[in-house]
């Protein structure tokens, strides 16, 4: 039951995107990148410097960027757009819907500073609805990697997927626990800890919170399984059913609204196949505010303690 994990360092997931994109610049001549005046924040500078002919600075005009990216696919380019998650989704929902998804264009929408951990900028920039918006969209794959290494691997993997992708990552430095040579398989969840008492299914920054929670739970004799559900859509249904069968109760954890997020998707799978007690760790129908990432995760009930409490509650609901 020992829940040991090898921490390889501490980096922001957006830097994983920047490195992955730069490597794609070398390996994939058809990869192009577009940015709406946030090149530094998105860590796209290296790509811009080394592949300037394939880098499009569009200025503060996200709508134009998304439709332009769709146009670039005509002629075989693989465009990666970069801006904050809020401006990558809510601001351009209709452009994504018509120019990208309905038009079946191979655009990779890469979104940084997602969720509360954007921090001090406050609720205007802390989007917590983006997973929901993007998973509702037909023809859209939705990926929320957990750490620097996984974000880098996911960035490279989506270049080889023929279709639109929403890739969500964040601002703060967080522990790295995915091996740097791990293979990223779109739609296939990673089991981080095996367990028998409760399944914690998490994505993004909440995967590390789930790891911490499992370690704390172990001290109380509770054996938690931790699953990194990095792909929200298409969802790894087999992994969900297998872990639910094994533990009999589920906690989902995400830096996102409970409404419309990973938890909803997992609940659909369970309800249709094998109704199972499930607790939802996420933001409960409210906007965020200014503060440090840690303060915000605590205040808005998406911290390690919340995952622990949810796990205990889920276990108590088992018949």
């Amino acid at each position, binding site marked *: 039951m020992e829940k040991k994990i090898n921490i390889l360092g501490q980096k922001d997931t957006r830097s994983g995107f920047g490195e992955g994109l730069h490597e794609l610049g070398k390996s994939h001549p058809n990869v192009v990148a577009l940015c709406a005046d946030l090149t530094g924040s998105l860590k796209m500078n290296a790509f811009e410097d080394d592949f300037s002919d394939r880098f499009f600075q569009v200025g503060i*005009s996200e709508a134009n960027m998304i439709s332009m990216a769709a146009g670039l696919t005509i*002629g075989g380019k693989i465009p990666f757009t970069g801006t904050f998650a809020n401006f990558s989704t809510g601001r351009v929902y209709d452009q994504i819907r018509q120019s990208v998804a309905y*038009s079946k264009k191979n655009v990779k929408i890469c979104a940084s500073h997602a969720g509360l951990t954007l921090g001090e900028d406050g609720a205007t920039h802390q989007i917590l609805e983006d997973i929901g918006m993007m998973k509702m969209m037909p023809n859209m794959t939705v990926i929320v990697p957990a750490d620097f290494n996984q974000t880098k691997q996911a960035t490279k993997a989506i270049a080889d997927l023929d279709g639109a992708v929403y890739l969500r990552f964040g601002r703060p430095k967080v522990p790295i626990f995915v091996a740097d040579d791990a293979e990223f398989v779109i739609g296939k969840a990673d089991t981080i800890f095996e367990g028998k008492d409760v399944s914690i299914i998490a994505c993004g920054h909440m995967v590390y919170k789930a790891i911490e929670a499992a370690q704390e739970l172990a001290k109380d004799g509770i054996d938690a399984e931790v699953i990194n559900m990095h792909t929200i859509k298409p969802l790894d249904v087999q992994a969900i059913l297998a872990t639910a069968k094994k533990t009999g109760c589920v906690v989902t954890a995400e830096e996102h609204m409970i409404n419309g997020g990973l938890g909803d998707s997992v609940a659909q799978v369970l309800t249709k196949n094998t109704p199972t007690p499930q607790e939802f760790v996420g933001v409960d129908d409210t906007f965020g505010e200014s503060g440090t990432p840690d303060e915000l995760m605590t205040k808005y009930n998406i911290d390690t303690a919340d995952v622990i409490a949810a796990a205990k509650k889920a276990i108590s609901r088992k018949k």
Partner: protein
Amino acid sequence: MEQYASQTRRDIVRMVAAVSSGHPGGSLGCADFFTVMYHKILKQDPKNFTMDGEGEDLFFLSNGHISPVWYSALARANYFPVEELATFRKLNSRLQGHPSVDHDLPGIRAASGSLGQGLSMGIGAAQAKKLNNDDRYVYVLMGDGELQEGQIWEAAMYAAAKGVDNLIATVDYNGRQIDGDVEDVLSLGNLKNKWQAFGWETLEVDGHNMEELISTYEEAQSLCGQGKPVMVLMKTEMGQGVDYMTGTHKWHGSAPNTEQLESALNQLEMTLGDY
């Protein structure tokens, strides 16, 4: 040329009348433009349509609601059988109310209907052509009412600032939109000055004079490759060719009934055979 335009106008009114829906006004107004585009201007390969259109000119319709004129032009240019025009707006058709690529209709590379997105897509496609050393052009048609969308001006700024000079855009300047005259709904001000101020080469043309249309687009091509995108402000009459549909915005988005259809068809010579 005149034959194609007349037949396309017949196709338009028959298509919208058959399903009692659709947008005949703007479609009729652009019939001459589409005829010139698809029979004189565009370098294209209708029988071997590919999404990438390598070595070909690309055409984007941003104001997707005038799909009837585009569908007719595509069918009459041999992109797909003219008989298929009878399926317009019907269940399981490739001819969706607004253009779609989800149904794999040859000739269409982007969905449109939600306004304001086509110019940006055209810019992207034009940039891809430059990266591919493909020296053909990208054409975009927009409505004038559509220019009220903010995204158009994002795109206008971008294309000029970044020297997208393989792009030829056209505004269907008919002065009318669903709720009334553009001047009354939300005036565009001095449109020519606006595009020039944004840094575009700006031409004007009578959209019902075929010779002038041809020479204008030849001139537009000659202006490409000089660091500036090209705008053609095309003056048209909404409903052109059907007397009772002109001089009003009323036929922007409504279809003729049986009697009105008959009246329209009496004014439009059948030249190539109805679908």
